[in-house]
């Protein structure tokens, strides 16, 4: 059975606008899923490029988040540090459909080599 391309991570209502939630990945990096005040959803690896602070716990404003450890401002769209800081955190494509949030599966958990071979 082929895996669905998108990973369903539950209803949009589970994250209040202006907040974020976390999704640990076994064998991978924890993901932070953000819901902005304007209703958009974004997902990033939950690690600030500066000192690995949990971005999920930062204040969300516009489409950026301010890291709780040292106030680096990170773009939710690109994962890039904004202002004078330099660094980037990986982003994960998100889509919302019929009230549910989906993450692009291959960006969350890269398929094991065998799977890739079969897909190719």
């Amino acid at each position, binding site marked *: 059975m082929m895996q669905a391309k998108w990973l369903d991570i539950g209803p949009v209502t589970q994250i209040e606008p202006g907040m974020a939630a976390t999704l640990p990945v076994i064998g991978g990096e924890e*993901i932070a899923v953000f819901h*902005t005040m304007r209703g*958009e959803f974004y997902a990033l690896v939950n690690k600030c490029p500066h000192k690995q602070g949990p971005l999920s*716990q*930062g204040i969300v*404003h516009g489409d950026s988040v301010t890291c709780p450890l040292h106030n680096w401002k990170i773009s939710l*769209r*690109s994962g890039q540090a904004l202002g004078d800081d330099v660094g980037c955190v990986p982003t994960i494509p998100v889509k919302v*459909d019929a009230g549910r949030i989906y993450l692009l599966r291959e960006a969350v958990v890269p398929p094991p080599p065998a799977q890739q071979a079969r897909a190719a």
Partner: protein
Amino acid sequence: MNAPTNFDKANPILGTLREKLVVIGNGMAGCRAVEEILARDPDRYSITIFGAEPRVNYNRIMLSPVLAGEKSFDEIVLNTAEWYADNGIELVAGDPVDHIDRERSVVVARSGRVEPYDKLLIATGSEPFVIPVPGRDLPGVVTFRDLDDVEKMLAAADGGGNAVVIGGGLLGLEAAHGLSLRGMSATVVHLMPTLMERQLDEAAGWLLKTELERRGQTILTGADTEEILERDGHVCGVRLRDGREIPADIVVMAVGIRPSTRLAKTAGLECERGILVDDHMVTSDPAILAVGECVEHRGQCYGLVAPLWEMCRALADHLTGQPSGYTGSVTSTKLKVSGIDVFSAGDFIGGDDHEDIVMRDAARGVYKRVILKDNRIVGAVLYGDTADGSWYFDLLKKQEDVSGIRDGLIFGQAFAMGGGAFADPNAAVAALSDDAEICGCNGVSKGKVVATIEAGAHSLDAVRSQCKASASCGSCTHLVESLLALTLGDGVEVGAKTLCKCTSFTHDDVRRLILDKELKAIPQVMQELHWTTPDGCASCRPALNYYLLCAWPGEYEDDQKSRFVNERLHANIQKDGTYSVVPRMWGGITNPAELRAIADVVEKYNAPMVKVTGGQRIDIFGIRKEDLPAVWADLNAAGMVSGHAYGKALRTVKTCVGSEWCRFGTQDSTGLGVKIERMTWGSWMPHKFKIAVSGCPRNCAEATIKDFGVVCVDSGYELHVGGNGGMKVRATDPLCKVATEEEALEHCAAFIQLYREDAHYLERTAPWIERKGIEWVRAQLFDDPQAVKRLAARFRYSQKFMQDDPWARRAAGERRDLHSHLATVRPATEYA
């Protein structure tokens, strides 16, 4: 009511030579596609249209005016029975297609009728999304998609009563408006905190909500429907997740739509959210095309009418052998509620490389925001004044470079295009006459502002304080700044630091205006004070949250999303992302039960370190956010509450043992420390606040480097303020000496309240006192003999709402979402 026309009879010779086109869907997309094809090549196809509704094609987007009583059904019919007849089209209305048989190239209708096709066009549109709550199937629960729905709503409205509309998007608000015009009392239940959040940003959504409420509708945002309630077999109300119940004689479900893909999916056509089509609207089967709301083109599904026209053009070009291609649409929205002007177009979310131009005019209730990227408009949100919506939309669609008119862009077409001189705002201001009014709030003319500047007011602040221009609502700030630039050139002095980059107001301005204008919510402050960003930043949000909390105790609801993580999670974040937990120990006193509970927590949760703090408390390190509520439950069980070691709040009251044990002690310093801590715990402050009580002038509790310190002497209590042991050590200033514990408590409360009401957010007492002067502090407290009493009373009133242990609420299950993960992804099982 099948149209009786048989095309083959009408055109007996050509008929048999024509290709057969079958259209599934007699709506706006299906009919428009046919019209476009006929306009290009009327003789090419023999056409049959299947429609699920038993009527001709009408303009679905005009159902709202029909509901509101502004139009009749006849007025919104697009294609009459004659149109079908005249064009030789066979309409099969009321007999929907049941399935598509691609092997045999036929469609089969519900009645069993079989229709062969050469080309098949799917235009099934979308269907209302019905939230899966109990009671959704009850009589009296309707969607808002077709004329039958409208008729059901009108029947319900005849009886008056209550209507609940679930969904505060475009359709939901139009339904609520219509029902309320028809005499029902309408309540909108919206899951998100902002109305029309897909079209509007928070600021415009807030204005819209305020206006609808003024018109008598009830708007509940952040409201999650749990169940639709029943009485005697009919809907009688709606219950929200928070337990509120709203009576309803009719419930309209308008939470959104989704593409109707059932037919396409069962026929094995490729579908994602919608039916996948290429730029010529062809599906994964070359004989089958699809158009309208049911399709997904380049990852995009549309729920508006404009893209449909563009799709139909590309489709018709393709079907008549002159392929052009559809490349996607930029959409704009207008709310069809009479008297409320709302416009939204393109991308209003913004981004790193996007720039926002925001104009707010609080007096007229106007909010305008234009989003630029590389000097081109990519989006616009307008509220209150939408006259320039089409101009912005046009610039957006044409991707025109607006750098030449950028400075005047936000003032609209007339201003920006009104000749070269007016494209420069300074020039526009220069052209004003001397008696033109600059500041409407304070009635200040241009001549007076210029005279004030010439008399020596060389900064915005100086102008504000000397002639009051732009000192109230601030909407004329840019005009005053232009006048400063025009009058002084480079001689303009940069004024006091503003609260942050989102506003031209200082902390003091904002605090004063919150009180003067009775501003009671963050979006309201941003609107009334002309914030230049849509929802602020990480600097102003926490500051505004504190200022509102301080100004309106008991009224303002704390905004968790404007809180720094420590205050949101009631613990201190550490560099590894775990938290430290400090339970309160009143005056630094503890006992075996508390120590045992702490020891048990350390073992139970494997805390890697326990440390005694500088403020005489015990700090448990390395707790994960998921474990915090359980840790707190254990500490609560031993009688301990939050120590607020994480907050811009009262931290600790440090004490020495005093006269009860110490041979030098003059007063009961521990007893007084406990009393002070019982009075002050839980209060939010501009910054952290530390207190100490020493039992004698040896000052073992180090009271003279605290924000508020008490040094006991034989004859009473010396009170000290403004000390700091941090980065910049500062010894306290003596405030006064009092004779009794009661007076010491009263002065402590009064000083704290003065600090709470006056200091800037994130300003400790030490820099605050250096800025204001200790003489100013003494004057505030002592010039008026009633001042201490009044300030202390305000502090105690505010404390009534603050002294509620946040740990206990969380331990009981409040805001569990902040402490849990959404889920855990396990690759091993995912791929098994």
